[in-house]
């Protein structure tokens, strides 16, 4: 008997639960973001600046602001999310954590979903929370502000999810900003139209449940399909790096 013969190393058969792995990815992203707070503030500052500049630049009249306030807030929120998208995978790509994420045995699309949810929590949700203040500043009435917050609450996760596809696709490029906007803005347009449409309907006193249902449909569609597309795009981007 050869004592030097290798003993067979047991193959790993146990697996970590998918949910546990997703929570770990989510928590790591949140923790990293809170260690770098100025990055968290950037989209919020941008959002506030755009919204405050409109009354100064266009017209401070109540009638104008009442009419276009919801649109201003929606466009500003959309652009803030767009600005923050480049960071979604970029740092992870540069330091190699994205590689390790891809090599985890759990399905990649679920891990990407966890990352996207962390992105929404750190950019989309603060925008929603800031909206009532800025809405009152633009003379929106209570009903409009409530509807606006609701549409943003449903709409910003859609923006993050769709944006993750673009961020993943442009990952390998050196200056991804413009291309990312070109790819993503057309996909944002329906969300924007229905978001502002809902608030306009609410301001006229019409029923908004139909609009909200459509926005909910957007969210479900993005939630189920976008992670697959992002995961596939990430594979392509990493394959070429």
């Amino acid at each position, binding site marked *: 008997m050869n004592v030097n*013969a*290798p*003993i067979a*190393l047991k193959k790993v058969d146990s697996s*970590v639960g998918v949910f546990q792995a997703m929570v770990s990815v989510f928590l790591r992203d949140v923790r990293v973001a809170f260690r770098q707070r100025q990055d968290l503030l950037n989209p919020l500052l941008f959002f506030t600046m755009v919204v405050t500049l409109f009354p100064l630049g266009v017209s401070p009249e109540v009638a104008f602001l009442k009419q276009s306030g919801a649109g201003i807030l929606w466009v500003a929120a959309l652009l803030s999310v767009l600005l923050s998208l480049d960071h979604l995978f970029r740092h992870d790509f540069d330091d*190699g954590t994205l590689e390790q994420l891809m090599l985890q*045995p759990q399905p990649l699309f679920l891990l990407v979903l966890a990352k996207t949810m962390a992105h929404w929590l750190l950019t989309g949700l603060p925008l929603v929370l800031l909206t009532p203040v800025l809405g009152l500043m633009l003379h929106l009435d209570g009903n409009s502000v409530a509807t606006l917050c609701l549409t943003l609450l449903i709409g910003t996760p859609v923006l993050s999810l769709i944006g993750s596809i673009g961020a993943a696709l442009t990952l390998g490029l050196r200056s991804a900003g413009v291309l990312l906007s070109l790819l993503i803005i057309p996909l944002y347009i329906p969300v924007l139209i229905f978001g502002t449409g809902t608030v306009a309907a609410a301001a006229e006193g019409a029923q908004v449940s139909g609009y909200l249902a459509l926005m909910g449909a957007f969210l479900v569609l993005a939630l189920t399909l976008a992670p697959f597309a992002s995961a596939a795009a990430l594979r392509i981007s990493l394959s070429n790096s």
Partner: protein
Amino acid sequence: MAFVIMRDVGIKCPVSILVPDWPSFMHPMPYRRPSLLNGTQMPEPLLQAVGLECERDERLLFQNLSFSILPGTVTRVEGPNGSGKTTLLRILAGLNDAWAGDLSWCGTSISQNRESYLRNMMYLGHRPGIKHLLTPLENLRALMAGRRPLDDDALLQALAGTGLAGFEHVPCRNLSAGQQRRVALARLLIADEPLWILDEVFTAIDADGVEAIETLLLQRAREGGAVIVTTHHDLDLPGMGRITLGAA
């Protein structure tokens, strides 16, 4: 373009068998004399590549590259800069999809068996996968979370084993390059994956660290695992197989 050297160092442990496009390769090694293996049966290869081919930026990196990685072996991928060592390792790890050929894990194609393969393979690349804003402990915990969650005691012990005792709670951006690599290398101490794919594993590591890593690689091989490694460091382990790329 690429060729493969067969090197036999006798009975201590079976070497990786590297065959250039062997037609009978699909059959279980008929060309190998059993005496070389000191009477033991030829083990099933952990990883087997047949006719690998990869082109990058319209340059053929390798073609008809066939080899098998047996349990109990350390294999070094050699070649000059730009010869495709990292690309080969990324292909083996499943990070690069732009290749042709067959790659199988324990007899099953990797593409069909991806989840099981990923559970049994550990890849450490150029970029160590360390977040600068997190501490070594948080980094290691996050890296292990999807594979083998361990309690903090085990993680702290692994960090201490790589010489990072006292630095567990210091953000990684305050650590030196070598210390940051050591955070990633702490995984070698707690990994239970049989197959290790390590790209430039000795970069920024001091002499003591290099020796410790060499011991770990040999130990993994002795335990029946397998290690594939690239390095510009002068690595010559007993029984090490070699895959040479890019030589004429």
